[in-house]
């Protein structure tokens, strides 16, 4: 007899025969079901070769359903393909690998899409989707989603979270205790009496039966440690809820992305429940668990993958789901190469966003205005997608071009992005209206920052050479529209007599005498939106903002190094020491605190009153530093190892620290962070993550003092100039508008 059951979808993965589904029922129970599912891959090529493939497939031991059909390749149009349905999903990969060996000349589609993603696309579900299952015994006959990932208010599923945390960083010391906590329960277990540990943990896992095992260093240390303890003692620890499946381990690796080297630690994934490691989750510090769950919902990746994968993989998955749902073929390998261009075409197209040189110095009453999610907004509004043809050569060169959407049906990229962008806009406007202490605020903020990373990467992925739905011309078109929009905004502002202090890709800093409140800028915002068709919003009005010069040359401005105080007293900093990861916490905190003291002045005219307070604070901090009273942890410098140790010609401080760690038997891979102290004498550094504690007397206080003074000077020099010398900005090259107002001067000349 058929029954129905509603609940939240927890986990989907292939078993030996079909799929296993885990559901958190509305009744509070955890249910396990199976479901038949046939993932398909497609092959295209010469009819004769396809016939041979069919015969070859018929002889395979894997149960299949074969069919000749027509499908759409977005770049080539309709194509006749051989559709290969694999009745045992787990065997798809193995089958595809042998297909590739036997028929390497065919073109394959939909070949490397993960089973959970295919399942999500087929039933329009997502991790933690609230859905209704139609059941016959333990077999799922149908799934009906009851919500979508795009709702702002999602009913929170009753997740049972068990937290496991060693009492210290295993890379640094030797943990003695394991702190176990869930809800209000919190206790610790001794790590070294292994039998007691395993027995207690196993009992806790059975009694509490968590949905989520949230650990610190679980991927890299704790779960491997527990697994080894189990093997050695012969005891069993039910980490997986589905005990028929093995715990999944993935090896560590290092890769290069966006000019940075990235390290991904070892991973341990569970079946039937999730394991997340706070220290091995992407951007955990940015958006925590709410953000991870949101990432999984919108990208439809399983939660354990969504937490550990880059936003780039997330955006690809979203595109794959769109393609699967629209019956569009996903090429196994990208086949489009860049079309040849003339030198002039290349010269005009190969550009990034527009970045101005700001006017150095302190500026009062400055409006900071931003296009809201500019690049994704451009893709959605102007229908920019690799397969959508554009007028002319396919490249919008920028000058004198209109801002019109490409004609025709929306492409894959805008289709994928539109709901995400709308959700982000809705969240942003909700955040603006919510009360400061509203409990939804932190949740919305972490959702919004999860979206932000997806939207940021989607632009990069348009130009990424391996992206299946990427094309460099689309990438260039986006930046061309961006430059055009920014220049239109500049023209609008200048026509309304604003002075442009700075422009940075999607934001402008404008100033006009008498404009001090948001209402004063409304006409400008409306005009810019009318001219560009893109939403623009007020980031805030600065009481004052300082654009800093380069360290090498005080006359050369740096685009992204500034700090300022908004009218509500909040501080915004970019590019200065406090924002850099390699600044010692003590110095970063001093700089931020200094800015907070300066922010107490109601406007720039009152900076003179708070400056003595700021200086007194600096003096106190300096005294702490010189007296050796700053805790050692606050002086730690954290830097990424950028290459293998052997590749350094003259070892950087981080490389010297790594050498010490290697001597202590710890391995650091490129892309991993190393923490160290500057010390007196050779080698000048002392690695932090080695067993023996450092000698506080060996710390190179002089070096820290130089770094400290540099950070203080960054903030105080321009303020000091404004207060005591009366010079806000040195207009060495850029005149105040009063001087270069041309009609006035023409009159003088006449």
């Amino acid at each position, binding site marked *: 007899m058929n029954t129905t059951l509603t609940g939240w979808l927890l986990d989907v993965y292939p078993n030996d025969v079909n799929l296993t589904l885990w559901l958190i029922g509305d009744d509070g129970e955890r249910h396990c079901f199976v479901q038949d599912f046939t993932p398909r891959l497609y092959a295209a090529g010469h009819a004769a070769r396809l016939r041979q493939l069919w015969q070859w497939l018929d002889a395979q031991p894997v149960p299949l359903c074969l069919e000749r059909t027509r499908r759409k390749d977005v770049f080539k149009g309709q194509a006749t393909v051989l559709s290969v349905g694999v009745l045992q999903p787990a065997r798809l990969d193995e089958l595809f690998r042998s297909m590739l060996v036997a028929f390497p000349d065919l073109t394959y589609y939909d070949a490397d899409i993960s089973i959970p993603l295919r399942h999500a696309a087929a039933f329009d579900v997502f991790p933690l989707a609230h859905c209704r299952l139609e059941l016959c015994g333990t077999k799922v006959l149908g799934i009906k989603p009851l919500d979508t990932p795009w709702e702002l208010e999602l009913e929170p599923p009753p997740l049972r979270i068990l937290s496991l945390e060693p009492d210290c960083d295993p890379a640094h010391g030797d943990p003695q205790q394991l702190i176990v906590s869930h809800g209000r329960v919190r206790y610790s277990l001794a790590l070294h009496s292994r039998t007691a540990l395993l027995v207690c943990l196993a009992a806790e896992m059975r009694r509490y039966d968590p949905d989520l095992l949230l650990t610190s260093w679980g991927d890299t240390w704790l779960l491997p440690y527990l697994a080894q303890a189990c093997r050695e003692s012969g005891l069993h620890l039910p980490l997986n809820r589905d005990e028929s499946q093995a715990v999944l381990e993935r090896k560590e690796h290092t890769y290069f992305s966006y000019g940075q080297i990235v390290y991904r630690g070892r991973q341990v994934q569970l079946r039937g429940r999730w394991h997340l490691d706070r220290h091995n989750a992407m951007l955990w510090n940015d958006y925590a668990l709410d953000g991870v769950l949101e990432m999984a919902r919108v990208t439809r990746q399983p939660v354990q993958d969504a937490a550990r994968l880059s936003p780039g993989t997330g955006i690809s998955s979203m595109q794959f789901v769109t393609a699967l749902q629209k019956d569009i073929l996903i090429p196994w390998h990208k086949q489009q190469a860049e079309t040849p261009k003339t030198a002039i075409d290349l010269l005009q197209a*190969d550009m990034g966003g*527009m970045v101005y*040189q700001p006017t150095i110095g302190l500026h009062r009453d400055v409006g900071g205005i931003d296009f809201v999610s500019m690049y994704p907004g451009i893709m959605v509004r102007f229908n920019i997608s690799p397969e959508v043809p554009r007028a002319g050569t396919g490249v919008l060169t920028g000058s004198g071009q209109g801002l019109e959407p490409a004609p025709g049906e929306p492409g894959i990229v805008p289709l994928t992005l539109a709901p995400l962008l709308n959700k982000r806009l809705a969240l942003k406007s909700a955040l603006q209206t919510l009360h400061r202490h509203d409990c939804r605020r932190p949740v919305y903020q972490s959702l919004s920052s999860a979206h932000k990373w997806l939207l940021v990467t989607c632009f990069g992925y348009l130009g*990424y050479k391996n992206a299946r739905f990427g094309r460099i011309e689309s990438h260039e078109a986006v930046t061309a529209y961006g430059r055009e929009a920014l220049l239109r905004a500049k023209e609008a502002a200048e026509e309304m007599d604003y002075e442009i202090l700075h422009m940075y890709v999607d934001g402008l800093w404008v100033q006009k005498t008498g404009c001090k409140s948001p209402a004063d800028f409304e006409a400008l915002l409306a005009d810019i939106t009318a001219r560009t068709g893109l939403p623009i919003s007020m980031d805030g009005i600065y009481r004052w903002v300082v654009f800093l010069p380069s360290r090498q040359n005080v006359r*050369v401005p740096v685009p992204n190094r500034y700090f300022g105080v908004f009218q509500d007293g909040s501080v915004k900093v970019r590019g200065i020491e406090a924002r850099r990861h390699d600044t010692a916490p003590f110095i970063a905190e001093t700089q931020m605190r200094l800015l907070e003291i300066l922010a107490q002045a109601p406007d720039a005219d009152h900076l003179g009153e708070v400056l003595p307070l700021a200086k007194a604070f600096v003096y106190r901090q300096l005294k702490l530093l010189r007296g050796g009273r700053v805790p050692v942890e606050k002086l730690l410098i954290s830097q990424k190892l950028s290459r293998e140790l052997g590749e350094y010609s003259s070892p950087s401080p981080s490389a010297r620290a790594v050498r010490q760690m290697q001597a202590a038997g710890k391995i650091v891979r490129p892309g991993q962070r190393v923490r160290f102290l500057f010390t007196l004498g050779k080698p000048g550094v002392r690695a932090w993550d080695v067993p023996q504690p450092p000698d506080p007397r060996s710390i190179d206080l002089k070096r820290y003092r130089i770094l400290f003074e540099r950070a203080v000077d960054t903030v105080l020099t321009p303020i000091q100039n404004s207060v005591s010398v009366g010079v806000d900005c040195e207009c060495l*090259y850029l005149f105040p508008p009063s*001087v270069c107002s041309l009609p006035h*001067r023409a009159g*003088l000349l006449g």
Partner: protein
Amino acid sequence: MGRTLPSATQVFLQEEAAFSRFRRALRRSDQLALDDLFGSARQHLAAAQYASHALPFEVFLLSMLLEEHKEVMHLRQLVEEQLSQKP
């Protein structure tokens, strides 16, 4: 992620480097003036990038000229103000 063409800043630095022998042979005082000229060209890198001119050094020369002319305008105004204040 890579660029096929160097950015305006990279082109600028290359052009500046190309004149290092010229700069070396100048008097110290002239060197400073030359550095100043390059500094003023640097103020307009965003515009130079947007112009995507085939001969970027022409744009840098024009940027230097632009800053020079602004300076002239500024000084001219100061002189005129001074002159008009005199009885």
